[in-house]
């Protein structure tokens, strides 16, 4: 059976099995979840090893099967250089988050079942190549998220969950309209029927006249659809000004869910833009992204950094730093240089690992102190040295220290975008100062300085927590030293995509 | 030619047993007697099946109905009522209106039997049917067959659940 299919559906099987377990066997549920995320992780590793890094056209491990033939909806999955990194990230973070969720005691079975369902949805989004299938997975992942925040969240969980849900649903609605518009205006050249197949949609020769140059609401159709899709994805990224669901959702969500939320879900926005907006409407992309997307990216970077600086809740600070870091991804994509676009996707991956670490670390301290107020600690480095070591790695990675992974991607992004827009790049580069500011300031207030006597005998990080952090820390360091490991994977696909789009500049 | 003369005789005998005991079931006041009569009806019906060249069905009829359902019924009777208690045995009420309805139905059915143009084919010699039925079960009727097994399973489980005393107490 196809490896991608297995990776997507093994967690579903796991979810069903967990639901069927006896009521009081919480540990069985946990280990079941471990097994059903470990298998996809191993598959991801084999995918990483066997992926053909030279193929720049089309997809690998592709499967096409009829699903709903009357509407030409297919079960079509496959990976290329863009999605494989995200598949790897999803598999890894899902696995680690199971361990990070070990401490959940409320409705354990339901939690893990929903979590696995979420995992399947995310994986599905990244591998599906049929737009309908994509949309189905997109929605599948939304629902477990709603419940995970809404049931296992913090004090204002209902508000956060509903805000998240409605926001994303608004994006989904715009996306659905665009999907339908694309469907009715894309023709499969073989059968001469409408199709949901993304690969077909990426070939403008299959588009109808209307889709190529028609008018709607007095605007050109590609621009309108591009914008609708973009808003749908921008909400997920989250791009300014659609970002306010993020801090709320993060603050209320349990640790593992925050990790998934920031580590994987945010990437879906930028992934969607790269997978859908760019190849399907290269001309509109060239028109709009050049200034618009880049400007949004820069606003995200600077604004997110400034907001982060003003936070008193550590988790909120990390959430806003995510907003800032995702800005780099947009800036890089909008640069239309190979450095920029490669940097953008690498940044997606690196942000996934770094921010996952950050949220896990916040979770560690929250589990012990039951609050996250930055000013409420002090001098923890003295009592929790190992923990502080991990904190240092994560914080310095987040502020872009060379030698750690995020530096490579940020430098590539800024280098790439400099060619298109030096002024914007300079403004974005200013944020390296700001990020150093808020990160170090937080580090200083919580971990350095005189010890707060209240936490004099706080418990050092335990083995399970170390287990979740070590792989991420290793990745952060390894990719800082040898980024080629990931750059190799995506280079061929991204460069050909960049070629398609930059033709229209 | 003896065969020729024997067939109606046997038929009428069987028909008489069947119909007679059926009416016995209908009109006896004691439910226990009703059950005994039912047994005879079922056996008679089995005989009639044989005459219709349905040997396998007949055997199944005897096994399932007589050996299974009837015994079950008798058990139920014994579990639910004391035999001596005649008053709750098997009264039937409102006989008169029911006769009216029965008459109406009987009339219309007989009329239908007589007036309808039944499609009749040449009757061949009776042959054993087990092989053909078994074959049909595992080819053409495989899905219904499996479904039937599921239904039986469900009925089994349902019957167990319904008749367990302690569960009711928990719920009640």
């Amino acid at each position, binding site marked *: 059976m196809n490896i991608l299919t297995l990776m997507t559906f093994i967690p579903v099987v796991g979810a069903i099995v967990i639901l069927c377990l006896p009521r009081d066997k919480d540990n069985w549920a946990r280990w079941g979840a471990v097994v059903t995320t470990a298998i996809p992780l191993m598959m991801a590793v084999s995918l990483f090893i066997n992926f053909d890094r030279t193929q720049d056209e089309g997809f690998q491990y592709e499967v096409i099967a009829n699903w709903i033939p009357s509407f030409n909806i297919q079960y079509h999955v496959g990976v290329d250089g863009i999605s494989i990194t995200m598949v790897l990230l999803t598999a890894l973070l899902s696995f680690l988050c199971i361990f990070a969720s070990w401490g959940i005691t409320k409705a354990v079975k339901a939690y893990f079942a929903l979590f696995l369902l979420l995992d399947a949805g995310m994986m599905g989004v990244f591998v599906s190549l049929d737009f309908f299938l994509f949309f189905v997975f997109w929605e599948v992942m939304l629902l477990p998220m709603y419940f995970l925040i809404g049931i296992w969240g913090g004090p204002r969980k209902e508000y956060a969950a509903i805000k998240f849900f409605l926001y994303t649903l608004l994006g989904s609605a715009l996306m659905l309209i665009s999907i339908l518009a694309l469907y009715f205006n894309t023709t499969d050249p073989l059968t001469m029927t409408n199709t949901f197949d993304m690969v077909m949609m990426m070939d403008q020769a299959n588009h109808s006249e209307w889709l190529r140059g028609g008018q709607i609401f007095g605007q050109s159709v590609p621009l309108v659809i591009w914008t609708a899709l973009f808003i749908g994805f921008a909400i997920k990224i989250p791009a300014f000004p659609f970002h306010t669901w993020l801090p709320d959702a993060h603050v209320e969500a349990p640790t593992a869910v925050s990790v998934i939320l920031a580590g994987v879900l945010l990437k879906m926005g930028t992934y969607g833009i790269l997978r859908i907006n760019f190849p399907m409407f290269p001309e509109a992309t060239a028109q709009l992204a050049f200034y618009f997307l880049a400007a949004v990216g820069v606003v995200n970077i600077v604004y997110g950094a400034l907001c982060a600086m003003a936070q008193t809740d550590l988790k909120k600070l990390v959430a806003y730093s995510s907003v800032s870091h995702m800005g780099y991804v947009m800036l890089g994509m909008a640069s239309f240089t190979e450095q920029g676009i490669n940097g953008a996707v690498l940044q997606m991956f690196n942000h996934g690992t770094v921010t996952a670490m950050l949220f896990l670390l916040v979770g560690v301290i929250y589990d012990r102190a039951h609050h996250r107020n930055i000013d409420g600690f002090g001098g923890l480095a003295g009592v929790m040295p190992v923990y502080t070591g991990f904190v240092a790695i994560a914080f310095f990675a987040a502020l872009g220290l060379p030698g750690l992974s995020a530096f490579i991607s940020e430098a590539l992004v800024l280098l790439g975008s400099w060619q298109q827009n030096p002024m914007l790049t300079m403004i974005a580069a200013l944020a390296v100062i700001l990020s150093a500011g808020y990160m170090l300031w937080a580090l200083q207030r919580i971990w350095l300085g005189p010890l707060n006597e209240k936490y004099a005998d706080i418990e050092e990080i335990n083995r399970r927590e170390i287990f979740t952090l070590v792989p991420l820390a290793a990745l952060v360091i390894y990719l800082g030293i040898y980024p080629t490991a990931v750059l190799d994977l995506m280079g061929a696909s991204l460069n050909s995509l960049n070629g398609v789009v930059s033709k229209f500049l | 030619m003896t065969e020729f003369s024997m067939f*109606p005789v046997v038929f009428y005998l069987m*028909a008489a047993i*069947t*119909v007679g005991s059926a*009416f016995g*079931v*209908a009109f006896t006041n004691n*439910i226990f007697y*009703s059950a005994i009569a039912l047994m005879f*009806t*079922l056996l008679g*019906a089995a005989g*009639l099946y044989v005459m*219709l060249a*349905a040997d*396998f*069905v007949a055997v199944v*009829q005897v096994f*399932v*109905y007589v050996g299974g*359902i009837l015994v079950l*019924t008798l058990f*139920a*009777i014994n*579990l*639910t*009522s004391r035999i001596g208690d005649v008053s*709750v*045995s*098997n009264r*039937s*009420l*409102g006989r008169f209106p*029911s006769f009216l*309805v*029965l008459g109406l*139905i*009987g009339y219309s*059915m*007989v009329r239908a*039997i*007589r007036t309808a143009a*039944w*499609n*009749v*084919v040449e*009757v061949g010699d009776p042959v054993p049917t087990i092989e053909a*039925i078994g074959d*049909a*079960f595992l080819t053409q*009727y495989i899905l*219904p067959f499996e479904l*039937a097994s599921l*239904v039986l399973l469900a*009925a089994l489980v*349902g*019957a167990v659940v*319904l*008749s367990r005393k302690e569960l*009711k107490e928990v719920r009640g």
Partner: protein
Amino acid sequence: MEIGLTHFLVVSTMVFLAGLFCVLTRRNAIGILMGVELILNSANLNYLAFSRYSSVNYDGQMFAIFVIMLAAAEAAIGLAIVLGIYQTFHTIDVEATDTLRL
């Protein structure tokens, strides 16, 4: 007169009427169930008769077997329900168990 389809149908009708009578007039739940058995038997008789006289294949017999199967299931469930009713009301007189009445 040669024994043919009609004869069997008449017998079946008689059994059916007897079953119907049971169903309509009995106050004892088990009696009603017995009536149902009679009705099912008459139906089976019809199946087999038509299978013998009006067709060349075994479809009728197959259906008869399924009917028997269903009858078995029905009896099992039905009798279990009767037992349940008895445990609840301490009678199986259907007139006494009219709590469904508004």
